[in-house]
């Protein structure tokens, strides 16, 4: 088991190297750079001023030189400085990470809280009107994009209740009530489509399990139908759901880019959007690396959780 974890952690290195190279190239393929983005705010710079700014941020060097510089800094644990703010990228990320992680965690919990009962009922009552409603809701959940739902929530709250959650982000350790008010709506918006996918998956998976011989055996041995579903059926049906949950973290982080902006939450998502607008290469590269690490670690945790859910699985 330990060896398996070590191997997986070692695999992080080439994955992140590949990711860093990809982000490095892709952001530079987008026309414009930090200087042109700044000109949008500041008017036109003289050629001399443009040259000075490009030199300050090493944008006058070749891509190869820039990448080598970036990687050598990264090897020392230095994510560089934000072009726009002039502050260490690590500080900016540290400022935005808690809000994003909390929203992602709450969204995941909410989606599980919704998907497990809905998927289970839908499978157990397959073909009934409840099943039809659940499936319709699941389709709606997948069809409605989070940016639209987020906007509708904000507009609905503001225009019909004349109320909106407080702007910004307060740590739960400082003021739990304000914190929950700030993160609950973005978390609901993200959980909505997330739970739709999980609901359909649980339903299909559970339907498959319910047809297995061991389920009939369990009922034949005298276990009630409800107990058989909860103790044996659901546990076996969860494996594919957990697998998808790992992949959904990437979806959550991607969704946070728009949802955080709509709800004015100062997380990594809104920071990523800002860094793209400003062509703040260092900041964006740092954020994507953190997103990458989170996604990879989440998938590792998912793999490890298989052994807990299904004792037949062993790692070597």
């Amino acid at each position, binding site marked *: 088991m330990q060896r398996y974890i070590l191997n997986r952690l070692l695999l992080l290195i080439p994955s992140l190297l590949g990711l860093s190279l990809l982000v490095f190239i892709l952001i530079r393929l987008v026309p414009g750079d930090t200087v042109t983005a700044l000109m949008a705010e500041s008017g036109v710079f003289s050629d001399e001023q443009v040259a000075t700014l490009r030199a300050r941020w090493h944008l006058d060097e070749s891509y190869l030189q820039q990448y080598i510089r970036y990687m050598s800094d990264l090897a020392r644990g230095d994510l560089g400085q934000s072009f726009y703010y002039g502050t260490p990228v690590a500080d900016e990320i540290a400022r935005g990470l808690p809000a994003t992680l909390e929203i992602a965690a709450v969204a995941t919990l909410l989606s599980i809280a919704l998907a497990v009962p809905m998927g289970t009922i839908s499978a157990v009552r397959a073909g009934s009107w409840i099943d039809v409603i659940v499936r319709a809701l699941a389709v709606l959940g997948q069809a409605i994009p989070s940016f639209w739902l987020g*906007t509708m929530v904000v507009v609905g709250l503001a225009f019909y209740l004349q109320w909106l959650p407080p702007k910004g982000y307060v740590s739960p350790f400082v003021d739990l009530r304000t914190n929950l008010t700030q993160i609950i709506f973005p978390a609901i918006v993200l959980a909505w489509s997330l739970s739709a996918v999980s609901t359909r998956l649980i339903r299909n998976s559970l339907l498959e399990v319910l047809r297995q011989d061991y389920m009939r055996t369990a009922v034949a041995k005298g276990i009630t139908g409800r107990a058989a579903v909860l103790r044996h059926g659901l546990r076996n049906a969860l494996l594919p759901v957990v697998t998808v949950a790992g992949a959904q973290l990437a979806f959550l982080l991607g969704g946070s880019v728009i949802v955080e902006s709509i709800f004015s939450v100062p997380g990594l998502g809104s920071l990523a959007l800002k860094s793209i607008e400003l062509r703040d290469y260092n900041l964006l590269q740092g954020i994507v690396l953190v997103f990458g690490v989170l996604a990879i670690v989440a998938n590792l945790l998912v793999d490890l959780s298989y052994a807990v859910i299904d004792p037949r699985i062993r790692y070597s």
Partner: protein
Amino acid sequence: MGTIAKTTRRRLLVGAGGAGLAGAFLSACGGGSTTDGSGSLADGGGTTQVASEEAKQGGVFHVPRLTEPPDFDPTLSYNSTIHRAVGLVYNRLLKWNWGPETAPSSTDIVPDLVESFEQPDETTTVFTFRNNVSWQNRPPVNGRAFGASDVKATFDRILSPELKSQLAGRFAGELASLEASDDRTVVTKLTQPYAEFLHSLAFHFYWIVPRELIETDQLKSNPVGTGPFIMERWDKGQKIVFQRNPTYWKQGKPHLDGVEYLLIRDNAATLSSFASGQVDSISDVDAENLTAIKAQIRGAQVQEFATWVTRRLQVTPTRPPLNDPRVRLAILKMVDQQQVNDLVSRGGSFVGPLPHQWGDYGLPEDQARQLLKVDLAEAKKLLDAAGYDYEQTLEMSWNQGYGKWYESAALILQQQLEKGGVKTRITSYPQAEYLARWRPPFDKNQLTPAPLTGNSPELLYTAYNPRGEYYFQPVDDQRLLDMIERQRRILDTEERAKYVIDIQRYLLTENIIDIPLGLPALAEVVQPKVRNYFFHLTFGAPYLEDASFA
């Protein structure tokens, strides 16, 4: 209308905010028109509908902001996010006036840190500063008295060749020296008469900073000024918090306990925040959103205004077929500005190169309408005379960063030119791509806003002179450059205004570079409980020193 040349040889004393004396200062400066604030949008006066009453103390005013600044150093760049952020903290030597009777676009000049000035000759100005101004009681300045050495330190920094400040441009080649003769006096010497000198000092980029912030390199992180509000903290990505400056030099002001700039990056979220009462004002509201706000928020107070920024079609005078002035004149005669105003701006103003709303220097509306009259028959004659190839397609473009207005205007414009037999292809590009693809001067046909220079003829210099900050279109016309240079040297306001109007007639008849497309209407909206909110287009919202709640 007085003129600088006539009046500056006598000493002008201006009281601290006294309306009468400020008015005297205004007429002395010849600093633009006075509007009564009661006009409709069509005549550019702006409608003031925000309640004005005796101010009550207290309350925190919340302002939405789409962007936040990288830092707070106002001396190096024109980055509007910086200047919008520091306007509550710092003062300028002179400023544009605001008030219940003043249009939001007015650039009437009144004193700020300056108490009086005299101009013993055409190139020398002696500024005397107020003696009751102190810096905010924060380190490293700790409430010491404001003085001439701060002004000198500020301008030394702006004009420092090593720092390459964008702000140096306005004074480059104009300001020969700026010396402090004592604690309250600064003497400036110009290299030659410069009609825009006072206007430039009042421009909303030239904030005076304390010398200690420069010496200790704290300008970026620690704004400490002489202004009505103290910057308490910056929660990056969230908000900037300002508190009332208890030692502000204007007695009894500000009335608010504080101001908070909330970062709301999304336009829909900004509207919603206003609807929910989370923010107290909302800016640059167009006709469409204004209708929605009025329907949703009972009692919302609306102040409509004409912006400083005219919209225009730039035609490149250096490349065929538009290098033939007859073709450019023909294009001008096909463009129906009124239709653009009616269909796209939904109520904008009909304007020439410098809008008539700007007062003395603006082209009068009747002249603008006459010179910009649609005449397809005449256009065809001009094209035929120029041997125009009707099968060719004219390429035009616009920068998506400028907003939706340009998309609609581009479509209307395409139809108008097609009626005149000119085929066009209009392409739009994302802002960063646009700026990355082309460096000014762009040398291409494009829809753009006019430079933001306030309501002054300085626009002519910044747009058409190769040394100008917004030289977007190459101009190969020595006569025009000579005329623009000459108007900068005319100190008599009346004479200068007449000459500036002649330049505009030239720009609409003989060498067409820009075709005006109107001056759209916008609105500033505040909550019903807000009082004494004298909105002005100046950056930094310094007018919040007058604002209060019911």
